[in-house]
């Protein structure tokens, strides 16, 4: 839905302000503007959601999370790309212009 044509890595993503959410330290539950089923993020997904405020590109998100967890940048990038794409498809994130 919000997937940019040239891939996701350099696209800047922001949380759609219409997204409804609830957080605990272990879990983030999200409901997109048109969604009927909630999305549950756990573990690094919780950190990813936190890192999306302020808006950031997938590359920046991967760098931030790799630093936070002390892990390999490429591994983090490959982990979060499908999650970012899924969140964008669910309307929870939108690509900024």
């Amino acid at each position, binding site marked *: 839905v919000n997937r940019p044509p040239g891939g996701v890595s350099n696209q800047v993503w922001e949380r759609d*302000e219409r997204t409804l959410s609830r957080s*605990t330290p272990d*879990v983030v539950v999200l409901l997109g503007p048109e969604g009927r089923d909630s999305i549950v993020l756990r573990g690094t997904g919780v950190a990813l959601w936190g890192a999306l405020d302020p808006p950031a590109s997938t590359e920046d998100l991967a760098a931030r999370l790799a630093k936070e967890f002390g892990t390999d940048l490429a591994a983090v990038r490959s982990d979060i790309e499908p999650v970012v794409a899924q969140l964008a498809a669910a309307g929870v994130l939108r690509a900024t212009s």
Partner: protein
Amino acid sequence: MISPSPADVVRGVAGYGLPHATSTLPLGVLDDETWNTAYTAVVRQRVTGHLVHALQDGAFLATDDQRAAANEAHEKALALALLLERLLLTTLALLHAGEIVTRVLRGPAIAHTLYPEPGLRSFGDVDLLVAPRDYDAALALLRAHGARRRFPEPRRGFDRRFGKGACLVTPDHLEVDLHRTFVAGPFGLAIEADELFGRSTKFSLGGQTLHGLDSEARFLEGCFHAAIGDEGRRLASLRDVAQMVLCSDLDVARVRELCQAWQCGIVVRRAIGLTWDAFGLDATPEVVRWARELQPTTFERQALHAYSGANRSYARQTVAGLHAVRGLGAKAMYAGALLVPTRAYLRARDGGYLRRSRRAVRLFRDDRAALQRNGSRAR
């Protein structure tokens, strides 16, 4: 493993994190039987947020299975809250397009304005207040978009003039309670609903600014819910009252004014009494001191009788409401609608005219007896 009273465990959970609470959490891991009973009650009372919070803080000790069950139940509660908030936003969009002014009551309004995390306050439906003049239009609008009434009104126009409101079920089987006032019966009839729209407490949801009741009206509405609402789900309401008294700014002079105007000081006294007992609160802020010293009027005592005790019922509250209806013509209309309601109402509530007549006579007789008892006590 330990086996304290499950009721004490649930009270401890519901009061977790509350300043001045002396209710405590168990000091060890609960045995399976106690856990199962307490867990079921925590879910029913909608206080899973406090349980998960206590588990995360290490204040509630649990096995891995118990912890997993608590987390799973809370995730379900959070997911339901989001669905209901989406329903709230779509419902408000419809009503506002129809130029109908609203105030959000209870669940979402409380969760987003009174608690440090909205996830601490779970809820099971959406409650909206509309002005009496807009009530019929609001109802028609929501029904035109697929909502259906759970119960019909006794006669056309009864709800707008005398009723609490209507419970609507959406095509997704979620509930919207469309309120004209806070409660059915005498207390609801004594409230000047139009006055509730002059002020508000704002909160943000889904990128929009919504309006709940102002702090003092919200406190009184919370007291009604806590004092005379569903006993099986009372702890969350009692926690709300404690949050409002201990963790928010209340203009006590305005609370007193509203109580006097709406004749509901006894409701505040009862709500505060139940709250302070439930959580063993050892603070006595100004509103608590005032409520404890309050001398209820005869009307208040009689009205409360209809909502409490073993014989409490919607029918009893409605009969007792006759005393709060102003003007002879209005009283006749109120009594007439209840004595000879529509067939659809009868089918849903009583099954037939004969059964209803017998029940009505019995309730009016009981109501008169209660009046005489309370009257002689007042003298």
